[in-house]
């Protein structure tokens, strides 16, 4: 089975960070109205569409799949197209899973896991510690600059945006549903999310995350 890069994990974690960013919403009461808001969503499922833009490529590389998370147990990021692959963030570490269910631990990403756990548990102090948060020049977007060297080595900047889509992913129109990860190399990854809050993850997913 192919190993997943730690960087992928980092990006997933960033994504989770974004999803759960709502925990820190109360910290920014003076944000202008045209910026997206963050709301608490400890358990959710949804789908994603990802487009990777490489400087050397003319066209982006598109992939899509499903995701599940529960801040108390972890995250499942499952790519369905163009090929199957799964990433699991558990309490015990980070794992990749192949089509037959065999999983392999990805060592060395524990620091990020810890940061993410702090964010997921609504630790706004930790969130502010790990990112410098600014209003973006783009409407309906926030700009996050990683403070954590591990992230900063890979990611130059993260944009958290709300784009109006025919299907609203949440009750609140201003919720974040579009993430752009800008790398230092000039490459970027755009992820569009559709999330639905849940009270409990499906049992099968919970079992995979245990």
């Amino acid at each position: 089975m192919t190993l997943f890069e730690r960087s992928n994990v980092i990006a997933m974690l960033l994504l989770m960070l974004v999803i759960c960013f709502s925990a820190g919403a109360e910290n920014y009461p003076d944000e202008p109205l045209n910026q997206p808001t963050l709301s608490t969503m400890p358990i959710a499922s949804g789908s994603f569409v990802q487009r990777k833009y490489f400087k050397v490529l003319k066209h982006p590389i598109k992939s899509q799949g499903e995701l599940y998370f529960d801040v108390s147990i972890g995250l499942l990021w499952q790519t369905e197209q163009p090929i199957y692959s799964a990433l699991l963030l558990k309490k015990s570490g980070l794992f990749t899973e192949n089509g037959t269910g065999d999983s392999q631990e990805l060592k060395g990403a524990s620091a990020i896991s810890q940061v993410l756990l702090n964010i997921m548990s609504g630790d706004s102090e930790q969130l502010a510690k790990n990112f410098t948060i600014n209003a973006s020049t783009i409407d309906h977007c926030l700009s996050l600059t990683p403070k954590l060297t591990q992230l900063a080595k890979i990611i130059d900047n993260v944009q958290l945006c709300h784009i109006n889509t025919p299907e609203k992913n949440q009750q609140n129109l201003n919720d974040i549903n579009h993430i752009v990860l800008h790398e230092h190399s000039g490459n970027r990854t755009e992820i569009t999310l559709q999330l639905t809050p849940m009270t409990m993850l499906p049992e099968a997913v919970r079992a995979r995350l245990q």
Partner: protein
Amino acid sequence: MRDFNKLKKLYWLQLLAVFLLGGYLLFFGQWRIESNLLSILPHSAQQQDFSAAEQALFKSKSQQLLVLIAGDNALKAHDALAMKVHDVANVSLAPLIEPSLTDIAEFYRPFRHNFLTSSYLEHLDNSQALAQLATKQIIQVANPFVSETIATAPRLNLAEYLQVALSNLADVEFDQGVAFVNVQGQRYLISRLQVTLDGLDLNTSVDISAKLQQLFNDIRNVEKVELIYSGILFHTAESTRQAKTEISTFGVLSLVAVLLLIWSAFRSMLPLWSAVLVLSIASAYGFIAILLFFQSLHLLTLVFAITLIGVVIDYCFHALVYADRQKNLQQDQKSNPLTKPLVLGFITTAIGYFILVFSPLTLLSQVAVFMIFGLFGALITVLALLPQLKGFNKITSSASAVAFSQQGVNVFSNLVRYKKMIISLLVFSLVSLAVLAPIKFDDDVRLLNSSPKWLIEQEISVAKALNYHHSQRLIIKAKTTQEMLEIQEQVIDRVLANQANIRVKGINKLLPSIKRQQQHHALLAKADEQGHFQAVLALSGLDDPVNAFKPLTFQDFLQGPLAAIGESYIAYYDTGNGLEYASWLELSQAPLSAENLLWLAENPHVSLYDTASDVSDALGQYRQGILWLLASAFMVVVVILFAKYGLKAGALSAIATIGSALLALTLSQLFSSHLNIFNLLAVLLIIALAIDYVIFYQEHGLQVKTFLAISLSALSSAAVFGILVFSATPAVSSFGLTVMIGIVSIFILAPIATKNINLNDMRSS
């Protein structure tokens, strides 16, 4: 008379020569003091063969200290340590450096077709599988390896290869330039310190250790953090401190005990001064001999050497007890009643120690040389110098000592009547003990570790946090780097073929052998020719023609961004017959199987670097040798005693000598859970001492003077060796315990074995 004057002159001349030699060696000789126990323990032949490789690979690491800090203020504490450590002389910060991925990708770019992971190798003939492998990488959200290499290596084989190779080495993570590890959710920041002075003397080690520990304590108290540390320096400092304390404490206690005994037996100053003179000269002889024959003096040698007091004082007691019989000594040295038993006694004790001179344990060689020369100095001083002291021949035993001795002779005279019963009891006890508690030896050198428990616990905590607590290290050496890298790959392939769950950490992935690079290059080129990479290249639409093979060499590697990692895994050294190269591998997650160990043991290029088990094995082999030596010594004792004193007295003497030795060994086991080689070595000494007692009784009979001299000798020896029982060094305490029990045993058994009893000796003399 003329002979005696000649002897006197000779004595003074040799004393002058010895002291001049001592002065020269002390001030101009190349000697140093050591306290590392491992440096004086034996090494197996294989370890000796790899000692240069070990030295080259691990010398600088042995001078490194690791400090792990956890807690809310860990970063502040880490920064405080970085700032204040410069105040400690001879210690500097050796930061862990995180290489730049851009530099790494750029460095490997020219060699991109030489590296294939097992996943790529497995699917080289399957276009679809290769495309899936590449797709999985390319769709990952922000893969820096893909980002850095896709433009120049669009097959993405290099991206996956670098990711696998670097993650394999990455137990340590970095945050804002600070290295750290996570242990059960707790983040420990890592500081690496380097002792900058080469060849630290022990006092400097103690000084640095004390200053660092003070600094650590200050940081703990101010920042309220958990701070743990490890490093050989701390063990050296603790061993030094402990040995110094024991040398001074035990030395003073032994001397006081012995002087008290002399005072109680003779009640005058001359015997005290005589004893101090003999002890001083004996110690000087022993010390000068060590300086002459060894380049380093181990502190533990001095702890063992305290026993010299106990043996030398025997000579003094005999000389003092028989002082009044040396009135006419100046006329006729041959009439000295002490000459024969003392010289015989010296010869037997010296033979006992001489056997240890050739021991693979440098410690024992040093102790043996110290004792032989010390005893020789004492012997000639007792025979040639003491009788010249004014008033020496007027020394008499105190009335209370004589009364005590008289009582003792009476008691033992009565006991002699029951000698059959006593001997039967001894044999029965020995047999019973042998059946109920069979003698068991444990050669594990870790049981001899004298480091304090708190330091060992810290060492274990650090090892666990950094994930090397139960790891095993392999050293690979060869004449060329390429041969070494090829052997390293063979070793890994073989080990993993038998134990796929073992994790191998080493330089092997980042720097494969040229042979392997060429194989991978050829496989990739062939797959490319067959069109298996077309789908992969189509993902990016980029082209990457496979060029002619260009190897990544060791020299190239040392010029690259991963040179520091390379230098920590590979070393080269001059063997005298040219350069040799060595590398090491860390194996974890499972211990090597017996099959793998056997295979590795047969490979002359590979050695399992496990100092503890290696030394333990060597100790075990040495113990077997000592057991055979003991058996031979028992035989020699029996033959000598039978030949000298006849069948009956010889048998009794042999039973007393060998019985006391065996009793000491079996009783020692009752006091401690296991026996080690030092208990066995103590038995050798017991035989050497016991035979002296037996010879004295057989020569002089059980009489008041002999009993007094032997009682004083036994009491002083038991006190001196008994004090060693309280040593914190298990080797010293085991040795002391067994010798003490042996001395008490022979003190009781030797008079019972004697053939002559003379109750009127004191009165008649």
